[in-house]
């Protein structure tokens, strides 16, 4: 029996394997997608989410009972799970989809996450989901909000600060909004999506990488979860953005001012 006075938190962190942020991507000539034979790593916003979960445990100690990471993706996504386990998560779930399958949409992913949260009920449930505000491949930025909607849970998007109050069953979250910051008070269970300034993710140490190899990863399929991951939107094509003709140079400030004048740009009258 868990002691009734202290609440114990179970944290779920959904993560995605994406093309590495430093790779200059190339659109395939058939316009069906981009060249994926390049370096991949964990979506940077998801790394921030894993880091935040680990820091919450460092702060709250035993009040955090478990940190589970989950990914929905092709076989190679298992590597991304290992990275998160090396950062400090306890266990992983891999909802494996075939390499040939189309990439699932945010709504499909949110439904799979809902199914996972429902499965977790037997093990004490999920109190907090922390995930990236967007993946840097499709840039949709929807999954967290959709999951919160499906669960009818509160949501705090674009978080730059998360303060948990376990005894009061709530969290104060500072969010980055257009033109400034906003602070919300949310009840648990809660979905938080991370913004860049929430933290700086750690590098896993070699001993932790070794330890991570022994941590459990459960393998599931969409069928196990009874969710349909087939996209409902059709991607007709993927093309290169229009190229900008740059490269014009001037030799000095006077020539620069002449160019501005040419474009009809001058000082504003005081």
């Amino acid at each position, binding site marked *: 029996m868990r002691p009734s006075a202290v609440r114990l938190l179970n944290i779920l962190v959904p993560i995605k394997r994406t093309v590495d942020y430093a790779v200059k991507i190339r659109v395939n000539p058939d316009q069906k997608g981009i060249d994926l034979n390049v370096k991949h790593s964990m979506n940077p916003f998801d790394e921030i989410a894993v880091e935040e979960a680990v820091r919450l445990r460092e702060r709250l100690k035993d009040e955090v009972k478990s940190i589970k990471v989950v990914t929905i993706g092709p076989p190679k996504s298992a590597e991304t799970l290992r990275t998160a386990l090396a950062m400090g998560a306890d266990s992983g779930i891999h909802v494996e989809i075939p390499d040939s399958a189309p990439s699932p949409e945010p709504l499909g992913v949110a439904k799979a996450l809902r199914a996972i949260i429902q499965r977790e009920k037997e093990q004490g449930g999920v109190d907090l989901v922390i995930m990236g505000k967007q993946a840097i491949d499709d840039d949709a930025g929807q999954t967290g909000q959709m999951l919160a909607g499906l669960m009818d849970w509160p949501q705090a998007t674009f978080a730059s600060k998360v303060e948990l109050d376990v005894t009061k069953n709530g969290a104060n979250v500072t969010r980055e909004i257009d033109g400034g910051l*906003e*602070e919300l008070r949310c009840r648990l269970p809660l979905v938080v999506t991370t913004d860049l300034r929430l933290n700086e993710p750690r590098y896993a140490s070699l001993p932790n990488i070794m330890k991570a190899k022994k941590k459990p990863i459960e393998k599931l399929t969409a069928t196990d979860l009874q969710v349909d991951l087939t996209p409902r939107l059709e991607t007709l094509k993927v093309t*290169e953005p229009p190229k900008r003709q740059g490269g014009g140079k001037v030799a000095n400030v006077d020539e620069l001012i002449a160019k501005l004048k040419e*474009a009809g740009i001058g*000082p504003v009258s005081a």
Partner: protein
Amino acid sequence: PHALVFLEHRAGVIDSASLSAVTAAQHLGGKATGLVIGGPDEVPNVVQQAKKLKGLNALLHSTSPEYSTPVPEIVSPLFEHLLAKDSPFTHVLSAHSSSAKSLLPRVAARLDLPAVSDVTSITHDSSDGATTFTRPIYAGNAIATVRAPASIPIKLFTIRATAFSAAATSDAAAEDSVLEPIAVTDPPTQHIKTDLTKSDRPELGAASRVVSGGRALKNAETFKATLEPLADILGAAIGASRAAVDAGYADNSLQVGQTGKVVAPELYMALGISGAIQHLAGMKDSKLIVAINKDPDAPIFQVADVGLVADLFEAVPELVEKLKQQ
């Protein structure tokens, strides 16, 4: 088609990005109804402005003290009610703003519908009920063309404001009607406070001229001292690269780039900015790009119309002086 356009406002003025959303709705080729929500002290004034927007056939407005600092948990039920069975609306759109980005996907999931983010062009085919969108992916390094077929009864999407012009005002006023707010008992989220960065300058996202600084500005003091005189004389907003923001030279609300603001002003001046992919994604649609950088090989020069290889601490003050003399 019949579009519902979510109109956001701040300090009694409709956001310029929402004006772009009204224009975007015209691309569907059907009717458009605006939706204004807010507190009792804001709505009447905003409704007067919204009624006169060219392109809106009707206007709905819903007033509640709870809507003055709206959180998605409280606003979503109103949308769900509006879009329930037999709703006249075929499309729901808004600007890709921080609040709509939080709200629309939640609403979509509640209605078991997918959503499309950050749309830059729209075509609708009335014969088959399908809408086709383009949207940037991979930080704008690729453009996806996405089709939402008729099997998606209501298409929800957010638009990139810089891709659509702002709707003009007309003399005619659209008919407005009251939409009863939907009360949420015991909401799970409470708004505590909002801190907006105060500035006398034009708002970065809407400014026609932007002066941006990068890591080469050295520190917060030199960032201010170098950029502000130039921004003053040009009447420009100030922006910053992610590197400058992360280094603490500038507030994060000033960040231009894929993870910050996407801008497309008449003039964009990049000072001491090398031109990382992330940054270029946020400004490459600007009309005239001017770059000043010490490093002749900086990638920013590949997209700049006017490049000057120079020490910005000499070139910028000289530029300010010479502009003053004009």
